[in-house]
């Protein structure tokens, strides 16, 4: 075991896989010599060479398109998109090609591409360095979508994504790269080294895709969250003083509905939270799916707490961010409902 922050855990996952599997290649803007703008690929080019860890031209459509070609030709590409906000030039390649290649060729062609991309706000990045577009990808059949909330999961899930045979869009909440963040920017940052999930095996291990995890057991209400919001949920639960069960969704698609519904049927109340905008957001899918199975157990309407339906404003980051106060208010409100 070693203490790792999230960036180190991701780096370690790629290191392990580059070492174990000669088919694995890494490509993206500034990922090679420089080691990536967030340093997630630091040292990998030096270790594995320029043919396996490639700097690319600035062209996300080109990066994804080339990764598809490489994947179809027997490699296992890990493509980094520097910010999720810059994934859109590659959107057509992901939606029309990557997601459907296996289906349209009746299984004869497929491209096992993993796309890593930092998402989320809280770093003063304004509208072009803060987005959480997971719902856009969750809506596409044929790609898996993942968002870890801690270094241990980040490494285990990334290895699963790389080892799998299907394309994965792997969102990395950049605000928690260096430490868990509970939504209060006034507090001094806590490092991952003081968090149990900052303990990460150095070698190979996996966390399976498609499984949610109960990170806090409770009886009164279930909070469904992922990424940074898992930590915000913990703070909100303390603030609201309720005995809440927090479920880290982790795998956005495919979704582990069993774990979610088991929890909600038990508690009878549910709050769904994410940082992304609310309207048409992934929370809507969670609410709909959960109520289909848990309707007769519910004591109150399921509430959503999410980013406002606006672009992420530079000046009002903390008014925009669905912080612990808003989540706590929703928890109290579902508890009061009769």
């Amino acid at each position, binding site marked *: 075991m070693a203490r790792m922050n999230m960036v180190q855990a991701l780096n370690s996952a790629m290191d392990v896989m580059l070492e174990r599997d000669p088919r694995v290649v890494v490509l993206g803007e500034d990922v090679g010599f420089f080691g990536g703008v967030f340093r997630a690929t630091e040292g990998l080019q030096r270790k594995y060479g320029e043919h396996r860890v490639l700097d690319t031209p600035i062209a996300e459509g080109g990066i994804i398109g080339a990764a598809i070609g490489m994947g179809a030709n027997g490699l296992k590409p890990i493509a980094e998109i520097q910010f999720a906000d810059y994934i859109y030039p590659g959107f057509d390649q992901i939606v029309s090609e990557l997601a459907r290649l296996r289906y349209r060729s009746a299984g004869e062609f497929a491209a096992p591409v993993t796309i890593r991309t930092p998402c989320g706000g809280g770093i003063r990045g304004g509208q072009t360095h803060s987005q959480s577009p997971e719902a856009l990808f969750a809506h596409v059949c044929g790609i898996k979508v993942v968002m870890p909330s801690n270094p241990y999961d980040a490494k285990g899930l990334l290895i699963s994504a790389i080892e799998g045979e299907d394309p994965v869009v792997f969102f990395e909440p950049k605000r928690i790269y260096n430490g868990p963040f509970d939504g209060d*920017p006034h507090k001094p940052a806590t490092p991952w080294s003081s968090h149990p999930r900052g303990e990460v095996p150095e070698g190979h291990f996996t966390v399976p895709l498609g499984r949610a995890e109960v990170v806090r057991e409770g009886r009164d209400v279930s909070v469904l969250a992922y990424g940074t919001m898992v930590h915000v949920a913990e703070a909100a639960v303390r603030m609201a003083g309720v005995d809440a069960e927090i479920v880290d969704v982790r795998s956005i698609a495919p979704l582990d509905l069993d774990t979610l519904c088991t929890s909600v049927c038990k508690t009878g109340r549910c709050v769904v939270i994410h940082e992304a905008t609310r309207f048409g957001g992934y929370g809507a899918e969670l609410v709909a799916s959960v109520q289909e199975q848990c309707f007769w157990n519910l004591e109150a309407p399921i509430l959503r707490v999410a980013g*406002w339906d606006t672009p992420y404003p530079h000046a*009002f980051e903390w008014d925009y961010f669905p912080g612990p106060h808003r989540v706590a208010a929703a928890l109290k409100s579902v508890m009061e409902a009769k």
Partner: protein
Amino acid sequence: MPPRSRLHVPSPPARPGQEPDFSYVQISPAGAVARPDVTARARDIEDLALQMVRVLGDDHRAVGPWNPHLEPEELQVGLRHMLLTRLFDDRMQKIQRQGRISFYIKSTGEEAVAVAAGMALTPRDMLFPSYRQQGLQVVRGRNLVDLMCQCLSNTRDMCKGRQMPIMYHWGSGNIFSISGNLATQFPQAVGWAMAAAIKGEDHIAASWIGEGSSAEADFHYAMNFAAVYQAPVILNLVNNQWAISTFQGFAGGEHNTFAQRGPGYGIPGIRVDGNDFLAVYAVTQWAAQRARQSGGPTLIEHVTYRAAAHSTSDDPSRYRPKEEWRAWPLGDPVERLKDHLIALGEWTQERHTALEKDLEAHVTACWKEAETYGTLSGGPSLDPLTMFEDIFKEMPPNLARERDEMRALRAAAQASGQSAAPRAHEG
């Protein structure tokens, strides 16, 4: 051994700790490149893409057919604009280092690309810059206070706190809104120019893109649309050698010049010494004249060097020799224009030092004023409820509901004594 393919991976001539090496930059002597008529057919002037238009020689004299023969007063204005741009950049970087703004991008070493081009156009020509042409704002006479307020996201921020620093826009100054997403402005400039042609207007559009960003599909869309419709647009590609950590070879500069892409689309491609104020002015003038008389688009590759870090988040010593900029063969645009004016007998070091002092004082005064409209840590601040405005022309009900919800949350927070949200940039 049977033949096998092998992947070619471009590598820059020098990495940290190595000697800078710019031998790959092909440079024509000043005055050596012929200046064709603006009506020339693209295919007859393809060699412009391979040579380098230069006017200022090593002896600081202006020579050759591209000499725009500007009056000394105009040259002095150009020098002043470039110097102001540089001092503004230096100040804003310092201010960022003190934590008083969140981010900044300098244009140091590339001032001529914006300033000379901006001066060769008319104020009604529409500009679509990237984030590194603040010189255009200076040329168009923008109050620096406005730029500073944008960087501060304060009560006088033209973007109402919605954009990161340097993502300016200026409707009345005919400068389009700067995007954080690379290359998107290029086809938009073409569309704007097409509209000007549809409406039969006499002004044109100009856009700027980094050589790194020219790898994006948007660059190629722009080139093809511009060629197909012969749009009145100037497409400037700023080859400053580096795109964050990747050198220009990764954008395709190893095998051809960037200007050579023009002829491939049937567009004249001109390669110019981007640190030569007079040369940049002259080729812009040529392209503008051509566009105004229905001659269509021109691609201009400005060969320059990004002397500063990519941004305040970047540390270039990790990927290029620290002193690489000193070895840059095309010198510094400010110094070269200054030396030219001195050679003409129209400038002195004393006047230069005095001008620098004046401009410094001006920047200081502007910053003092900007701060009175609010800073990150105090003073007046924008109303967060404005974040719901301007998403649509009319606010739809879901946004109105969210705005009311936020208003209630803020009121409740105030009543309970906690701050609902810390000030804009803390934490």
